[in-house]
């Protein structure tokens, strides 16, 4: 009799781990990725619930306590109108997330659909779509956004005013949506090409794999093959790039707001807060430090998470 423990059942159960759970195990081992994940989770929580939990309204001014240094009452101090900087940073998180998530979702949808069509159906779709992609990428981001803002902002605002005068519907008075729509639109417009290229490359390599021929031999339609065979297999790299893309979109939103072509005051955005803080940083450094530090933290967290996901989802490529 041998003493070797033989338990085929246990071995089988251990093997029954899905691809995603496998990736999760690898992600958990990566300390930086876990740090990134935690920070992203906190930021996401802040973006959703933060504005309800802050002690002050982000707009309420207290002219008695202008430019106060950080204290227990005002964690990050107050700005030149006596508004609580902590509450504004918290609301800025919501702005940043809102813009980042919506822009990334739009960009990924456009990119995935166009990239998948280009890769799966080949020419002439491929040529036209890649031509569009190259064209979009050839225009400098900043220039494109400035042009869109300059050319569309005032007509839309005028149209909204006209609508308000005609209908007296209060909806048309909220110019904040014009900002957001322009920001979403212009940023999505410049963000989709990398996703389209990535998905196209993935689809091109997946299309020639035997299981696609096998699926065709089963008589499945192109649509089902695309939906159930091609796209799920292309998802790994796409998730990695979405994670990195969210961080980039946040930084981009801040950059545009910093330049005054993104989200405009009084809606707080890290970018316009940094821009305000920059004017007085020699006297009140906390006004610059608070939003800048949070922006930096968010950007770093997303890229750590993206890196970790990359290693977790492509175990062969990591080492």
């Amino acid at each position, binding site marked *: 009799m041998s003493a070797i423990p033989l338990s085929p059942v246990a071995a089988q159960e251990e093997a029954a781990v899905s691809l995603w759970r496998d990736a999760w195990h690898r992600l958990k081992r990566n300390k930086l990725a876990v740090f990134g994940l935690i920070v992203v989770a906190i930021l996401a929580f802040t973006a959703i619930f933060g504005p309800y939990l802050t002690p002050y309204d982000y707009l309420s001014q207290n002219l008695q306590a202008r430019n106060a240094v950080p204290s227990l009452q005002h964690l990050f101090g107050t700005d030149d109108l006596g508004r609580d900087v902590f509450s504004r940073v918290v609301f800025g998180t919501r702005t940043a997330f809102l813009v980042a998530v919506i822009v990334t979702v739009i960009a990924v949808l456009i990119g995935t659909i166009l990239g998948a069509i280009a890769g799966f159906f080949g020419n002439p779709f491929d040529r036209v779509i890649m031509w569009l992609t190259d064209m979009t990428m050839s225009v400098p981001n900043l220039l494109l956004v400035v042009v869109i803002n300059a050319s569309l902002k005032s007509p839309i605002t005028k149209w909204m005013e006209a609508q308000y005068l005609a209908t007296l519907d209060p909806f048309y008075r909220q110019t904040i949506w014009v900002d957001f729509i322009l920001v979403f639109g212009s940023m999505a417009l410049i963000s989709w090409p990398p996703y389209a290229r990535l998905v196209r490359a993935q689809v091109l390599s997946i299309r020639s794999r035997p299981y696609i*021929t096998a699926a*065709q*031999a089963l*008589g499945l339609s192109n649509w089902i093959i695309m939906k159930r065979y091609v796209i799920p297999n292309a*998802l790994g790299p796409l998730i990695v790039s979405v994670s990195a893309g969210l961080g980039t979109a946040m930084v981009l939103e801040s950059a545009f707001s910093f330049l005054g072509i993104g989200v405009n005051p009084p809606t707080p955005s890290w970018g316009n807060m940094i821009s305000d803080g920059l004017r007085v940083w020699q006297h009140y450094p906390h006004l610059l430090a608070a939003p800048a530090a949070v922006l930096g933290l968010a950007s770093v967290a997303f890229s750590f998470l993206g890196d970790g996901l990359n290693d977790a989802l492509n175990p062969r490529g990591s080492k």
Partner: protein
Amino acid sequence: MNTTRSNEKLLDVRGLTVEIDGRNGPAVVVDGIDLHVNKGETLGVVGESGCGKSLTMLSLMRLLPNKIKVTKGSASFDGQDLQKMSNKELRKVRGGDIGFVFQDPMTSLNPVMRIGDQICEPLIYHRGMKKAEARVRAVELLRLVGIPGPEERLQAYPHELSGGMRQRVMIAIGLACNPKLLIADEPTTALDVTIQAQIVDLVKDLRAKLGMSVVWITHDLALIAGLVDRVAVLYAGTVVEDAPVDELYARPSHPYTRGLLASIPKLSDAPASRLSSIGGTPPEPGRRPKGCPFAPRCPLAEAVCHERVPKLEPLSGAGNHRTACFVVQKMQEAA
């Protein structure tokens, strides 16, 4: 051997020609192939790598990659011309009436889909089954192909199964809709010898149970000896010999078939004797010789072999044994 066999043709391929669009113009890879499979019959398609076996089968189902095209010929299945069907009709045949088992079980299953879902796919698509019905049938199929614990296995991903198990899953998918014809494209090449034998036995067993026709593509003449009814030997995209399996082993007539059979090691060989092999390599597509494609490698080649292409003709005295060789045909007439 098989009681359901008849002389009615299920698959009839005539003069099928496939060309690759290369840099130096089109190159013929399958040159006017004639093949047929009777109902309930198992046909072995044998030949070296690159002789067009797989391309022929893929072209039947119009599954060829972009640059490869069927330029001539027809392929009718159950009375319908597969080459002339609309895509929609063709999709009904694929997976429904004709099941496919691919060469490499490691890469022919979708890695991100549970195998249960993959088996259910053709059932839902072709038979209009509900998910729950399809699952019942999937368990049945997994049991049929000899996978232990089929209920739990439905939840497994392909990477959790061994190569042999995956090939069984592939066969289960191929069989899902009770096809009239199962095309197995070198289904055992990626497997080790003991598993190969299991898979061959499994298909033999299933064929008897389900009464379908099978086309088994292989380069291994020895493997299929006990499995198939008839063998078509392919060389450089043409059928060079076509005979019932016993007849082929007893009286191989084409020099290429003889060479193939001679290169199978036998237990009766003297120890340490050299394996016999056929000298040279098959012609590259686009550089086919003018006459018989095998002539440059053929030990019996005569002047006429380099000039004209021989036709597949019945040997005298055996109506169902056909061969494409001038020399053999001449010897037959002389005898």
